[in-house]
């Protein structure tokens, strides 16, 4: 043990104001931690203590670690991911219990239903066949987190798949006008559109893709800074509601009609510039889970760089004078620099500081409904893909939803559930949580009836209606495919639900991410100063944003708060010696030893396109 252990300690904050003692015993023991290799932390000191293995915390731990900072990364839960976890069904159940007993701050009103099947010993499916994200996310092909994944080499731990289909619900049916395009231009060349509309759309496309530094574009955006995107599109580009909705809610993934023009244009732009970066799709999803999986990847990267990991461990006490931290495993460690604390990991003695910091900040509610159904929903997905997005614009549901509902659908092909099933992640941004629940349920029912309609194949129809003759067959097929015209067709089949799970999450990150993108000590939790302890930096709860936008910026803000600058954030040159293949197998023989790529910084990544694309994964990146 460290020498600090023996030192005479002054009374800590917690000891000076004894309230209810923090009880780590309440943390459930899960498989894998019953027989710890080491019970107590055997390190004397570290530079930075990171609490919580959520995505932002994990990226920060890795970034610090690669710069040579000695990091100790703990989590009070038994699994990785914290508020970004990817959970099994069993873990979801215990998580709900924890939430409802008030033990996980910022989450509330958790409800879960699980069919008994899963527990049947003979059941083909087990709890661990499922990976349910607490914060489902999609990744734009042109985005800062994706660049970071490549630069940090963390992508090598992960697998990514494309997502092309963005459906929008309008007039009581789903449409995918702009989906399945193979180029940016094609997104706007739906045959059903009039020539005039197409021309307006192309004009708009040109405007969006114009360089952001373009004088005219800047001026237009500045002039329309207060104008809603709806008005902007209808007045300046003469677009009709149907196209506007698609642009705002499906392509832009905005959540309300009052979204201001500059924000909405930036959102629409990120979709368009992401097209054809890795293929004719704008978005990627990581296999086996979203942010929970990526967090694990960064934690592994951090571990490689020297970070010490210990789950199921909480901070119980911190003495700011001695800089001594005490943990639930009874160990004590000196923290040389800072403590980064996720909002779900706040020890009792820090609660009042956190409350003070967040007092004046606007709280945002995010309500989610997750449903696992026994259908692969491939009708909604593009060929060869396993994920799709469905968006319900405001006012499109019977519940008169004021904000949009975004739904991410992933089937067994993404590894988050068994084959033949899919997970539907529905998110509402409605602030009234009762109303949010109604909206979510309403959207779910629309999806349910839609998938039943679309997936009822001919055989089922024939089986049930033996009177249908052969000549009628093709007609039925066509109308089934059209979906809309079969609105009143009620299939006998019902949707089998394996698990239904809902909760509300709170965050101080605003929906437009403005206090993440331009953080100040007024608006952002991480930059607010704690009175009694300068060493503490709180992180934010996950934002409501369906993409990973804002994550890297949050990480850099925290990184900068610790190191003073984000200039060297992940400024690491990795030699890809792990891809060295002495046998030269799978490669052109000439590339096996002489094709030197000394460093893999930004430049190398950008220039990787110069290489023959037919090369297998990493074949041109050689050891020195």
């Amino acid at each position, binding site marked *: 043990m460290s020498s600090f252990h023996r030192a005479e300690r002054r009374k800590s904050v917690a000891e000076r104001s004894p309230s209810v003692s923090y009880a780590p015993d309440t943390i459930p023991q899960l*498989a*894998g*931690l019953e*027989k*710890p*290799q*080491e019970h107590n*932390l055997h390190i004397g000191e570290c530079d930075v203590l990171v609490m919580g293995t959520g995505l932002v915390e994990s990226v920060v731990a890795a970034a610090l670690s690669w710069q040579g900072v000695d990091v100790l990364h703990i989590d009070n839960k038994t*699994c*990785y991911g914290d508020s970004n976890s990817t959970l099994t069904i069993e873990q979801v159940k215990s998580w709900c219990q924890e939430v409802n007993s008030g033990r996980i701050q910022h989450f509330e009103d958790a409800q879960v239903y699980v069919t008994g099947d899963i527990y049947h010993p003979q059941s083909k499916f087990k709890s661990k066949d499922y990976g349910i994200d607490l914060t489902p996310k999609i990744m734009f092909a*042109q985005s800062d987190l*994706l660049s970071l*994944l*490549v630069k*940090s*080499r963390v992508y*090598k731990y992960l*697998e990514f*798949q*494309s997502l092309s289909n963005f459906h929008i619900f309008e007039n009581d049916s789903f449409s995918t006008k702009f989906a399945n395009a193979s180029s940016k231009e094609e997104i706007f060349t739906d045959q059903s559109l009039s020539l005039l509309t197409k021309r307006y759309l192309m004009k708009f496309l040109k405007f969006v893709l114009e360089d952001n530094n373009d004088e005219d574009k800047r001026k237009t955006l500045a002039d329309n800074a207060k104008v809603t995107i709806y008005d902007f599109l209808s007045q300046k580009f003469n677009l009709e509601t149907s196209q506007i909705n698609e642009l705002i809610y499906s392509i832009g993934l905005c959540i309300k009609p009052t979204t201001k023009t500059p924000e909405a244009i930036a959102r629409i732009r990120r979709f368009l*510039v992401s097209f*054809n*970066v*890795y*293929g004719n799709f704008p978005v*990627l999803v990581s*296999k*086996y889970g979203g942010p929970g*999986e990526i967090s*694990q990847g960064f*934690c*592994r990267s951090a571990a*490689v760089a*020297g970070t*010490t*990991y*210990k*789950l199921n461990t909480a901070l119980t006490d911190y003495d700011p004078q001695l800089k001594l931290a005490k943990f639930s495993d009874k160990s004590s460690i000196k923290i040389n620099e800072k403590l980064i604390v996720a909002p779900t990991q706040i020890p009792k003695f820090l609660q009042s500081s956190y409350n003070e910091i967040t007092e004046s900040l606007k709280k945002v509610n995010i309500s989610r409904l997750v449903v696992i159904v026994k259908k692969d929903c491939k009708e909604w997905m593009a060929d060869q893909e396993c994920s799709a997005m469905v968006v319900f614009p405001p006012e499109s549901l019977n519940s008169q939803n004021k904000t949009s509902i975004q739904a991410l659908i992933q089937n067994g092909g993404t590894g988050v559930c068994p*084959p033949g099933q899919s997970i539907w992640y529905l998110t509402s941004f409605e602030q009234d949580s009762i109303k949010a629940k109604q909206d979510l349920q309403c959207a779910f029912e629309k999806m349910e009836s839609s998938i039943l309609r679309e997936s009822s194949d001919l055989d089922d129809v024939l089986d049930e209606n033996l009177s249908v003759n052969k000549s009628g067959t093709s007609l039925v097929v066509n109308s089934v495919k059209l979906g809309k015209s079969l609105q009143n067709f009620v299939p006998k089949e019902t949707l089998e639900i394996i698990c239904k799970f809902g909760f509300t999450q709170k965050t101080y990150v605003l929906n437009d991410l403005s206090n993440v993108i331009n953080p100040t000590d007024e608006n952002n939790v991480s930059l607010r100063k704690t009175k009694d302890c300068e060493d503490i930096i709180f992180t934010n709860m996950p934002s409501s944003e369906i993409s990973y936008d804002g994550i890297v910026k949050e990480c850099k803000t925290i990184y900068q708060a610790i190191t003073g600058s984000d200039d060297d954030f992940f400024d690491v040159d*990795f*030699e*890809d010696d*792990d*891809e*060295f293949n*002495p*046998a030269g*197998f*799978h490669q052109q023989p000439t590339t096996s030893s002489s094709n030197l790529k000394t460093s893999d910084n*930004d*430049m190398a*990544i*950008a*220039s*990787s*396109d110069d290489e023959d*694309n037919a090369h*297998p*994964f990493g074949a041109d*990146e050689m050891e020195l």
Partner: protein
Amino acid sequence: MSDNNRFAQFKLVLLGESAVGKSSIVHRFVKNTFDNMRESTIGAAFLTQTITLPESNTTIKFEIWDTAGQERYKSLAPMYYRNANAALCVYDITSRSSFNKAQDWIKELKKQAPEGIVICLVGNKLDLENEREVDQQEVIEYVQELNQENDNVILSECSAKNGEGVLDIFNKIGRALPVEEVINGANNRSRQVGSRKPGVNLSRQQNQPQSSNCC
């Protein structure tokens, strides 16, 4: 490429108590070096090495995942075990307790790892034979017992320091892996073989993005 040479890729994970020499074995295997002073270093991702099984004219590529120290406080992520085809469960023949820990890791593997994973129980530090604490016969009996329950455990001893037995471990594992199944694509559903990245390859952008501001 070469038609008469067959290729299969497998993920291999390392397990075992800290300081039993997990990384050293891999470094001996991959680079044929041994560094006495090394603590626990690995590349940014994982190491790869290929072997050839002459009898079946098959090349096997191992993608080797080190624990990166995350095993120390039992904090290995699910990602680590995912789709692992083989596990090297290492103990130190001069440490009784490390052998006990290895047995725990085998139990852990049965819980966390995919079914059918090939487990190789490896006694390292064979160069310190005179300090041996773990009797080979006992290990044999333990493994026999495991294999009665239909487990797929093989055993081996080696010295990462002088290289003795290291290649043998990987050859044994290679022969125990379901190579035929993988080559025939029977197992293509879960990621195997060359279908390792069936999805989007992030190292290959289609067109040059605007960010190509290289100097």
